[in-house]
């Protein structure tokens, strides 16, 4: 238990610590803060879009562009990645039966790179969308916001790579000699696979960032047509990193669901082997599909076909996970507490996310959906519906482990229902909104009846989400301070061992 608020440890002890549980806690707290702030930005966006015309919540389109750029950048790099790193930090050494991560000081360094990067992204508030596509980002986007974004993301990328190296070495080299890799929990496999993907994918974008910066300075023309460059080259570099990156976001969440669903169903996983195979398959095939984001850039028929096949090839792996979870629940004795509810909600929304994605990858249908709200709805079902739900479920599950207290179950379940209803309403509606042709990243839209109604429905869903998130964070904070002490050997009364390492004191 790291965060025993009633028996406080000195703050500097946690801040200067290199122990994996402390660093895990720091990652988690930073991530949740970013989630809440990013969510506030989203509420501002959706409230502004409640009606056509300027509602006054966001004064002009420039501010609007800065807000959604920061919202996206923040959610992806300051919520999703750090949270996964935090839970990984907390659990991986325990799961491989080692005393800490392989390189504790490197671990701390990787974490502490994030706050300055966060400050740069936040204070700069760049306006060129989180894609930062040239030529806009090199010719028109105002500095210093653009440069701050570039440097901030650069630092976050390095932090990610350092963390990935640490995880790989911990899992492969520091694993207890009597513990075979095929007996480690699936979350270990998820973290291992994710870390390897990070090492392969990130350097490409690191190069692209440098090129973007030198182009902005005017000393190079990689992506500037006036200097003989090609804006589409950037898109290839960007998506070669960021398509696998979306699997990097998703795979830890899938690993966490493999922790929650079997435990709360009181049944072992239907097929461990299938889980491992699906992870490895997804990691490899995930690199074969990046240009499905670029179908409208003027690719040839053959190029598009190749990437469509690459995209479709990744679907069976996800389908295997869904099968595994369902078959695990079948025949179990399921206890629906908050962690399981969030995991199950994630499972449901995972299907809708994937189904919508298949429509995007069908080449001609991309003409309907590319750069419309369909895409916004689709990816939010993934990052909110699958990944955030899995993360929040895991957070509730680890709550007694971290704090020694139980959160309030009823409030947690209410917040689950609010978030599930809100997320479904917002993002499923946006699929239809996209089919009507409303482009994404638009400050305003035509005052046509269907567009107005769907935007309003979406906004109401966002407010429901806001209520759920407020309840969630209130519950977690107050329970950490004065919640009921948890029964540490089995806080959820599942009849199985919990992470029973609490009998060992955390600083050994």
């Amino acid at each position: 238990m790291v965060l025993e608020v009633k028996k406080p440890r000195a703050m500097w002890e946690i801040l200067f610590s290199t122990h994996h549980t402390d660093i895990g806690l720091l990652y988690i707290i930073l991530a949740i803060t970013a989630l809440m702030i990013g969510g506030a930005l989203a509420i501002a966006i959706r409230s502004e879009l409640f009606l056509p015309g300027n509602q006054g919540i966001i004064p002009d389109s420039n501010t609007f562009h800065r807000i959604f750029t920061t919202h996206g950048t923040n959610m992806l790099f300051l919520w999703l990645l750090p949270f996964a790193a935090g839970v990984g930090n907390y659990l991986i050494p325990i799961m491989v039966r080692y005393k800490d991560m392989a390189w504790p000081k490197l671990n701390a360094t990787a974490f502490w790179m994030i706050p300055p990067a966060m400050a740069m992204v936040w204070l700069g508030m760049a306006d060129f969308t989180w894609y930062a596509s040239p030529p806009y980002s090199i010719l028109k986007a105002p500095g210093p916001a653009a440069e701050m974004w570039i440097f901030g993301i650069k630092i976050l990328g390095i932090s990610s790579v350092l963390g990935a190296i640490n995880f790989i070495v911990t899992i492969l080299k520091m694993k207890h000699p009597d513990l075979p890799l095929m007996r480690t929990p699936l979350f270990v496999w998820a973290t291992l696979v994710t870390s390897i993907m990070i090492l392969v994918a990130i350097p490409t974008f690191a190069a692209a960032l440098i090129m973007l910066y030198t182009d902005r300075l005017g000393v190079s023309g990689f992506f500037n047509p006036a200097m003989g460059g090609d804006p589409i080259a950037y898109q290839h570099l960007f998506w070669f990193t960021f398509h696998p990156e979306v699997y990097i976001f998703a795979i830890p969440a899938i690993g966490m669901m493999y922790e929650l669903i079997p435990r709360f169903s009181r049944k072992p996983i239907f097929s461990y082997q299938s889980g491992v195979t699906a992870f490895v398959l997804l990691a490899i095939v995930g690199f074969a599909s990046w240009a499905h984001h670029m179908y409208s850039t003027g690719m040839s028929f053959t190029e598009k076909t190749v990437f469509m096949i690459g995209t479709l090839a990744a679907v069976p792996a996800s389908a295997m996970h869904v099968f595994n979870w369902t078959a695990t629940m079948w025949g179990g004795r399921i206890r629906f507490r908050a962690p399981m509810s969030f995991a199950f909600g994630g499972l449901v929304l995972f299907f809708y996310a994937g189904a919508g994605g298949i429509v995007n990858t069908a080449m001609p249908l991309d003409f309907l959906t590319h750069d419309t709200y369909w895409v916004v709805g689709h990816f939010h079902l993934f990052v909110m519906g699958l990944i955030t739900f899995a993360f929040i479920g895991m957070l509730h599950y680890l709550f007694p482990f971290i704090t020694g207290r139980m959160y309030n179950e009823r409030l947690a379940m209410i917040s689950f229902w609010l978030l599930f209803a809100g997320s479904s309403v917002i993002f499923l509606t946006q699929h239809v909104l996209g089919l009507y042709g409303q482009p994404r990243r638009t400050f305003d839209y035509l005052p046509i009846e269907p567009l107005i109604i769907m935007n309003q429905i979406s906004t109401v869903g966002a407010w429901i989400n806001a209520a759920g998130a407020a309840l969630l964070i209130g519950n977690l904070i107050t329970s950490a301070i004065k919640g009921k002490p948890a029964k540490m050997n089995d806080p959820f009364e599942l009849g199985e061992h919990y992470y029973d390492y609490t009998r060992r004191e955390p600083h050994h």
Partner: protein
Amino acid sequence: MNDRDVKNLNNNLRLCDSRSIPLASRIILLLIPAALTVSFLANDAVLAFAQQTPGDYIINRVEIWGLFYRLMVIAFTVGAVLMGVLAYVVFKFRESNKKTFPREPMEGRR
């Protein structure tokens, strides 16, 4: 619990037994999706070999939306099946379900 206990956990509620699906049914089971695929593709095969003559052009949006509706049929069918299975699972196997997990008369009493 050890490996033996784990293997025996599902004995009451096995998903499928070795004997349960005979060979003939398995073949049919594997052929049905193939047959459906072929029947859907037949329409496209006809289109594939149609030539475009002047004055006789395909209408882009008709083709595209037609493909969209066909995919929606598949998506909603699969979705309905999956949602049905999930609803069944969470309803039948929730621990508060007295039919699946009958309670002893003295259970819960101290």
